């Protein structure tokens, strides 16, 4: 089985983000591996490791796939240090400003060409926060969509995959056969920290970097000019007015009630 995991490099999700000229300012904050993608890596490792256990030449592998600027290799390297086997980065100046449609197109193309049977994703990139790429990959590839998984079971012999989809609409058990696209929620596992050995090993792992020409996509289909939607304007929201903060000295509840009633909030 060849698993691809789509990972994105994002501005540190713990940092405050800002926009410059209609785009996210990626320079002002540290770039990290999207933390929601770590759950996908962890889950794939948990599926693959027992299968490869004790094998001289492992038959199952994990490739991390990303689209982004050159420095995205840092995020890929982090995933390799967790235990993935190799990486593939699609990087091209013409990709700047791509929308979800273009991202899905690029990722689907390299997944198709790479001969994978299973794709893992996080449920959301913490910068774009669209939660659409996994579904769009499944649409582009024509593969089964098993997304928002709170648990995943893969049976290699029968090629069947079962998940429990966990969303605000409740829990749904669903199944499909390979190939499929799975996205996992953050409650599924606790991602491992890379070990020292893992970090050393990752330095020697291969990351292929490809341009649009390499993967056979024309520049006009992607990037800001190829986008099907455009940002007209982006403005900081006026800061919230500073509120009242009071120490409870026995009447905090009463004061809170007064505030709510006075403002006619209750």
């Amino acid at each position, binding site marked *: 089985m060849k698993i691809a995991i789509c990972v994105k490099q994002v501005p540190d*999700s*713990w940092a*405050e*983000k*800002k926009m410059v000229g209609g785009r996210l300012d990626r320079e002002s904050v540290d770039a990290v591996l999207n933390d*929601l993608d770590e759950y996908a890596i962890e889950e794939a490792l948990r599926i693959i490791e027992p299968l490869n256990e004790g094998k001289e030449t492992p038959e199952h592998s994990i490739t991390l796939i990303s689209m982004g600027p050159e420095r995205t290799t840092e995020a890929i390297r982090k995933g390799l240090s967790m235990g993935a086997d190799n990486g593939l980065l699609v990087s091209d100046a013409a990709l700047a400003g791509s*929308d979800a*449609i273009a991202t899905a197109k690029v990722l689907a193309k390299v997944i198709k060409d790479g001969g994978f049977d299973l794709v893992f994703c996080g*449920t959301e990139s913490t910068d774009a*926060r*669209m*939660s*659409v790429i*996994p*579904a*769009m990959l499944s*649409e*582009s590839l024509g593969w*089964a*969509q*098993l*997304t928002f998984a709170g648990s995943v079971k893969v049976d290699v012999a029968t090629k069947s995959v079962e998940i429990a989809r*966990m*969303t*605000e*609409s*409740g829990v749904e*058990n*669903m199944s*499909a056969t390979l190939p*499929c696209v799975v996205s996992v929620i953050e*409650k599924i596992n606790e991602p491992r920290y890379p070990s020292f050995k893992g970090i050393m090993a990752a330095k020697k792992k291969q990351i292929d970097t490809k341009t649009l020409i390499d993967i056979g996509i024309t520049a006009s289909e992607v990037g800001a000019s190829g*986008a*099907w*939607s*455009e*940002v*007209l304007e*982006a*403005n*900081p*929201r006026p800061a*919230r*007015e500073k*509120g*009242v*903060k*009071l*120490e*409870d000295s026995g*009447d*905090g*509840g009463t004061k*809170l*009630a007064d*505030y*709510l*009633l006075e403002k006619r*909030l*209750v």
Partner: protein
Amino acid sequence: MANVLFLVDHDGEKVAKTAGELATFAKRAGTPVGVILSNSGKGDALAAGLNGTDCDRALVVENDEIAKHGIAAAVSALAQIVAAQQPSAVLIASSARGKEIAGRLALRIGGGVITDAIDVNENLATTQSVFGGSFMVNAKVKVGIPVITIRPSSIEAGVGSTLSSVEKVSVNIDAKDKTVTITNSQPPVKGGRPDLTEAKIVISGGRGTNGNFGEVEAMADLLGAAVGASRAATDAGWYPHTHQVGQTGKTVSPQLYIACGISGAIQHRAGMQTSKTIVAINKDPEAPIFDLADFGVVGDLFAVLPQAREAIKSKRA
């Protein structure tokens, strides 16, 4: 005027409050047409749920394969309706399901997609609130039929009349859209309280409740509020995950949000920062939630909440 399709969200029996909101947005940009994807025999009752909204016309698909095969099947049905109706836009409520349907549909019909809009104007330009509400973005789809998902409670639904037309539409779900089989589904446990995304008031508990949501729930019941929880509380199993507010939970934007024993981590703020008024009760004066709060009480939630409840009760009496 061109038709603006909107997908009517429902739980199989009842139409969600978002349907009326989408109808109102649709009316701004054209003629609202509600699309109902339902199991056989359920369509008419669901269509009746659109009476009194800004929508005059409903298209009803009764096809059991949609519930059985999930998102791809819903997209298949919608794409066929789009092809027949040639609307100027498709509006869908923002939820995990809504956004996934939107993304796939956009690819299939060759239109751009915008998610999580909080406003849509007559020209189908959208407003989004990004990075936890710190930036407002105006955007527009420039290719194909726009597919736009809209956050619940972004608008007060207009009041209209009874539907004048309900048409049954039959669709053929393609084999390629039936690759997933749903074997079992459990809807979220609904207590008597309002839905998180529909409520005017949300009161949430975090790690500070120490697993005891009694005070939070008692206040919720007095105020007719929905109950939310931080991830710390849902991870601990104190409250169902369907109630989680934040980046990986629900985004809420009520008139009043009361955070009890919640520190205000950036991932939590991402789901509640756009609430109109924010109240926080926390023992720790340094808790970041106070940076957002219009009214903050530094104190023990188990003392503050019951006292506030009694005070509200007695002043109302």
